[in-house]
């Protein structure tokens, strides 16, 4: 069930109405059933996996919490990690490593086809992992109620593509009895409307330019490939942050505040800043459970830099079992380390804001091309074309082959609207005019609603991050 599908538009009001009609203790049980139905609609068999892994984590966390023996606690944690990472490995990486091994060693065995990855697998396993590690680290006691814990893992707005919510942020909200009057309707409306606009108008329309180019990279010059790379930057951001916005907005209908996941990352002026604004919930997860687990910065200088590189490499691999993702992670790791060295050597160094922004966008575009390329051959070809056969003169003619000029103009307009709205939030430009604000904000959102109906792509495209 996709947020941008008709079935969800029927599902949500039903769940909302039933939730608020039920008495306190029954609400979470109902929400759990609704969340499982939401997941069941993707693939019924994978619901068993979700229930199995989260149920196991609940009992293991209880054992960790109740045990005084350090070795036993560690053993239970290892079992939890192995089960979660094992499931991730089987579904996401086994075939990748198996096929790579066969290719490397020239084995006669036949290559395997890829498996279907359960939607949102890494999101809910990451939540479970964070919970058991935190219990192990004595951050909090294990939960007493199985159903509450299962709901924490599977709460439908964020289950499939995040944000990855921490136990101590979501569980207190699930434990208290919510009051209907506390629903923040304005936030719900703004977040969902803007989220749908970003997904259906911006991301899905840009996809119709990006997809044909990346599917046939050999037909295009370096300039078109670079521009399409930039369009993909906007597409991914609009798609994923759009999902997060809708998830956060929908959660508000149940009185739940999900954590902020995106803080206008495309306005960053360095890679360091970018990673404090981009996909915050997953970035902080990698920081807290991988980077710190590796020793963080409390190790030798070289080991510290290696830790940074490893975290990016693993986060690249987390996105998918393909060498292109490894290249993406490695590029980010290398540039992040270079920035770290510069900032450490020149603590007062500050590049002009505009130059910093151009640098970030250029690097982000070039690296995200690795993220989007279908395979290493395509990636090599794209980089070669960008740096050796740029041919800006061919750009317009090649774009005309992909789409008509009116559609390209519209896509330009969508990007402009996105950047202007975010610039307004970043620099509080229009907010200075107090009287004006009460007019333009409603007017803007009314226009956005109507434009979703006419400009939106209603072919219910999957959200990009479901596959991760």
């Amino acid at each position, binding site marked *: 069930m996709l947020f941008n599908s008709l079935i969800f538009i029927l599902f949500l009001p039903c769940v909302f109405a039933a939730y608020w009609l039920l008495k306190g203790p029954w609400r979470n049980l109902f929400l759990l059933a609704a969340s499982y139905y939401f997941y069941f609609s993707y693939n019924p068999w994978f619901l068993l996996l979700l229930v199995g892994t989260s149920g196991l984590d609940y009992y293991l966390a209880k054992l960790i919490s109740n045990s005084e023996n350090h070795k036993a606690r560690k053993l239970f944690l290892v079992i939890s990690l192995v089960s979660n990472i094992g499931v991730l490995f089987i579904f996401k990486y086994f075939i990748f490593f198996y096929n790579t091994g066969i290719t490397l060693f020239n084995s006669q065995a036949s290559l395997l086809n890829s498996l279907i990855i359960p939607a949102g697998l890494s999101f809910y396993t990451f939540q479970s992992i964070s919970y058991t590690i935190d219990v192990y680290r004595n951050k909090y006691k294990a939960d007493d109620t199985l159903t509450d814990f299962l709901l924490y893992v599977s709460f439908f707005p964020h289950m499939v593509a995040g944000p990855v919510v921490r136990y101590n942020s979501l569980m207190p909200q699930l434990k208290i009895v919510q009051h209907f009057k506390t629903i923040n*309707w304005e936030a719900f409306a703004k977040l969902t409307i803007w989220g749908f606009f970003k997904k259906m108008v911006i991301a899905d329309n840009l996809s119709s330019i990006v997809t044909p180019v990346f599917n046939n990279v050999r037909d295009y010059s370096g300039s078109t490939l670079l521009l399409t790379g930039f369009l993909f930057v906007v597409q991914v951001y609009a798609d994923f942050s759009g999902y997060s916005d809708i998830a956060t907005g929908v959660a508000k209908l149940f009185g739940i505040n999900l954590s902020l996941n995106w803080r206008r990352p495309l306005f960053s002026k360095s890679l360091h800043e970018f990673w404090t604004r981009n996909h915050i919930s997953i970035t902080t997860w990698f920081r807290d459970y991988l980077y710190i687990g590796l020793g963080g910065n409390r190790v030798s200088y070289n080991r510290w830099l290696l830790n940074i590189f490893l975290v990016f490499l693993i986060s690249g691999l987390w996105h998918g079992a393909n060498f292109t993702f490894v290249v993406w992670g490695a590029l980010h790791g290398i540039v992040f380390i270079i920035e770290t060295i510069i900032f450490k050597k020149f603590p007062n160094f500050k590049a002009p804001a505009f130059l910093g922004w151009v640098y970030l966008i250029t690097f982000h575009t070039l690296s995200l091309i690795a993220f989007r390329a279908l395979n290493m051959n395509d990636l090599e070809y794209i980089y070669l074309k960008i740096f050796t056969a740029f041919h800006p003169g061919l750009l317009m003619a090649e774009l005309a082959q992909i789409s008509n000029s009116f559609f390209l103009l519209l896509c330009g307009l969508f990007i402009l609207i996105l950047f202007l709205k975010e610039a307004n939030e970043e620099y509080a430009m229009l907010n200075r005019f107090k009287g004006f604000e009460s007019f333009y904000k409603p007017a803007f959102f009314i226009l956005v609603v109507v434009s979703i109906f*006419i400009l939106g792509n*209603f072919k219910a495209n999957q959200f990009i991050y479901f596959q991760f």
Partner: protein
Amino acid sequence: MIKKGIIYTGLVIILAYALQWFMLAGLRHNAQGVYDKYNTLFLKKNSYNTLILGSSRAEMHTDVRLLDSLTGLNTFNAGVSGATTRMAYAVLKSYVVNSKIPKTIFLECDFHISHLSTDTIFNFPRYFPYLSNQVLYSEFKQIDPRFRQFKYNAFYGLPYMGIPCINPALNGWLGKSGKYDAFYTNGFFKNTVIDHYDHFNTKTYYGYISKETRQYLDSIILFCKTNSARLIFTMSPAYISAQKEVLNKQHIIEQYKNIAFINHLPLFNYSDDSGIIYNKHYFEDNYHMLYEGARIYTRKIATDFNNIPR
């Protein structure tokens, strides 16, 4: 908060309906191209004495100007993309709401899709501007019940119109023409589209004339008899690879011949015309001829028409 919500929702509804009106009126304002063709078919008063009915094959294969110059007829090409026989009948009935009943009707019989039944209308948003034609609306509503929503619910219809309709709507208001508008003459589409894709793939199957096709063929025949219009069956050429696609093609054609014979109707069968079907340059794909092929075919049916005893 509730008051605000009601006001904003009201404004959204008003804006959506205003936008829908703007789009539909813009499309109706087109003086060229496919929307002008549909304007002529469903809203304007016409006095053409001949009508070409059928699918995109009729639309692209019968050059009405050429036909008129060779036969002295005054023809409009009412072929519409994706039309089944049922849709062709709906188009005919909708046409005569505002226009004079034509004296002659050429009906393109598509042997390769005669087994299909009509569950929806191909490219249906194109018809939204013309739903004020009550016959068109009621016929299409029977085929696809969503047409009730398309007519009255802006929130349901707008997403289907989407971006592809904005440009022609603006063109309509601004009096400009679109990329393919000039390719239309009296409903005939001059097909000069040549791309690098291979559209000549084949997939063999057994065809037949479905109950629905037969029922609406009879309806068209009855309409023509009742209104003293001369009905002519035509079968335009299909590329050689398409000849092998429908494994029992000859059997289906025989059935059409039989229907024509029983009803005393002429049938101009050029579906396997050896002068055309072997030449790939005449075709865009298996079933659609390019302009050059269309002209040769039009000449042939014009000659046949002139040879019919009056």
